């Protein structure tokens, strides 16, 4: 089998069963996209009004959300990876809650908190910064939906860095911050990259939370819904193709680079 043979390490003869099972699973996963190729009207491929704007909104704000997620999530992930304390279950529960809450419900909770009459939203409104139907609200929604995924992946990445190496960096005269920057971060980089990829996919594809607190500005997921409602199914497919084109490169490249480096 040339596909599996080229990168295969020498070893015992492989069983056929897993190969066929893996092929079946891949086939099931690929089927909807094969269907998309079939149902797209390639001869009449065109974007609806506002699609370009939606692509810009999704890309720009998701990148901003990603930066915020990494800045907020990395210290938390490192702290969780390196400390054991009483009441840790509470922290675990908070992370799980953020993961478990259905997006629509999360949108409602955020709306209650950050909406114009919410305890925090009211305060922001007074400062003339609306946290509903605004760019800030859009980024807020994306952060809430993707942050827990990044934190979990980054925590696992930091847990994989031997504590001893961080300690050794200290004995070599480096400060804790330098040890983190020069040892922990580079050694956790592949795991962190996976976390970034996961957060990117999650933020870009977020629909439920965004729908409630940031219907405007419209990113791709909400615009897909609007196109379906206002125009019809044929207006969904071109934007969906565009979504794949803008969303795919970052996680694809991060994943390939990480796997290659780990194999090296």
């Amino acid at each position, binding site marked *: 089998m040339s596909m599996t043979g080229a990168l295969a390490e020498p070893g015992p003869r492989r069983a056929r069963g897993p190969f066929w099972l893996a092929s079946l699973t891949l086939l099931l996963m690929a089927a909807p996209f094969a269907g998309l190729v079939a149902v797209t009207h390639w001869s009449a491929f065109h974007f609806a009004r506002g699609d370009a704007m939606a692509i810009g909104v999704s890309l720009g704000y998701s990148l901003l959300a990603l930066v915020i997620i990494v800045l907020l999530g990395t210290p938390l992930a490192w702290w969780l990876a390196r400390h054991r304390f009483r009441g840790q279950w509470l922290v675990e529960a908070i992370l799980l809650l953020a993961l478990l809450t259905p997006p629509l419900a999360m949108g409602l909770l955020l709306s209650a908190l950050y909406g114009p009459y919410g305890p925090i939203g009211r305060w922001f409104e007074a400062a003339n910064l609306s946290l509903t139907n605004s760019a800030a609200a859009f980024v807020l929604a994306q952060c809430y939906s993707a942050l827990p995924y990044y934190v979990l992946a980054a925590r696992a990445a930091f847990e994989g860095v*031997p504590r001893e190496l961080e300690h*050794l960096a200290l004995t070599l005269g*480096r400060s804790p911050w330098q040890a983190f920057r020069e040892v922990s971060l580079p050694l956790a980089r592949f795991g962190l990259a996976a976390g970034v990829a996961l957060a990117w996919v999650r933020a870009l594809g977020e629909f439920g939370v965004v729908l409630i607190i940031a219907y405007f500005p419209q990113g791709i997921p909400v615009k897909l819904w609007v196109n379906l409602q206002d125009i019809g199914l044929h207006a969904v497919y071109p934007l969906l193709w565009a979504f794949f084109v803008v969303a795919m490169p970052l996680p694809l490249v991060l994943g390939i680079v990480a796997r290659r480096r780990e194999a090296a």
Partner: protein
Amino acid sequence: MELDYRLEHPLALSARGEIHGFTVLLGRSGSGKSSLLRAIAGLLPAHGTPFDGLPPQRRAVGYLPQGYALFPHLNAWQNVAFALDGSQRHRAALEWLARFNLAELATHYPDQLSGGQQQRVALARAMARRPELLLLDEPTSALDASTRDEVMAELVAQVHDLGVPALAVSHDPHLAALADHLLVLHDGRIVQQGPPDSVQAQPANAAVARLLGRRNLFHARVEAHGDGRGHTRLHWPEAGLHFSLPRHDLAVHSWVDGTLPPHRVTLTDHGGEGAVRARVARRMALDGQWQLALHCGKTLLWAYLPGTSPAPPIDAHVYVKWSASDIFLWPPAHADAAMQRENDE
């Protein structure tokens, strides 16, 4: 350099002694040796001299943990340069590598280096820090048995060349033999220190002797005085043996620690007075002699025989004997409860 450290966690330990040249601290696995090194490096909470109260980054130590902990994402020169600052760090790192005969391996990553090479890179890195004290945790643990003695002798020579005192903790009596100064840790404290030859010649107690790799250590009970010849009768319960020694200073019913050097144990063809029956459990041909482990009661009795004579096969029943004058007893004051505790474990 004076060492005086006290630890409470993860175990209570108090270590006080001298460090000069290549000093080895000998202790059992789990006795807190590694914790002591980590405490001196500032990685565990503890009090003592040197470096008391300083954060780890301000302690001038070169710390080599077990396995050396080279940074896997950095090559050899980058590992060494990690301890350096300034624009000349690349050149300085290469100079350190050259000093340890590693110049041609400067761009190799740790997983491309042998155990001995990794140790030298780690030592170069530790030295680049300009330490006042080198700390080595079980430096022989990651080395092949075939090259261990050679690599360690080279390490000791390098430490002498560098002129920095080193404290190596180990459970390996081979390493202890290479030391300039030996500290023996037992029961959370230093129980003996001195040049290795004098410690070897006169271990302070049975626990020290055991750490030095001695065999045939025993814990015996004084049963009675006098059989008309000024002898004292003792019982070695583990071996199921009763024997007499020409001593009269031992209190009846007290316990004493002693040793019977294996090379003093001889095989006889038949029983007779003083002969003990035993069964061969293991036999090893080592250094031109036979080392026989003999089942004797519930313990193993070791006998070293000349390699020129044939050794009995495994499971063979043999008679062994020795002279009463070959048995050495530690003075009862020093035959502390340590040996009993070890036996209990």
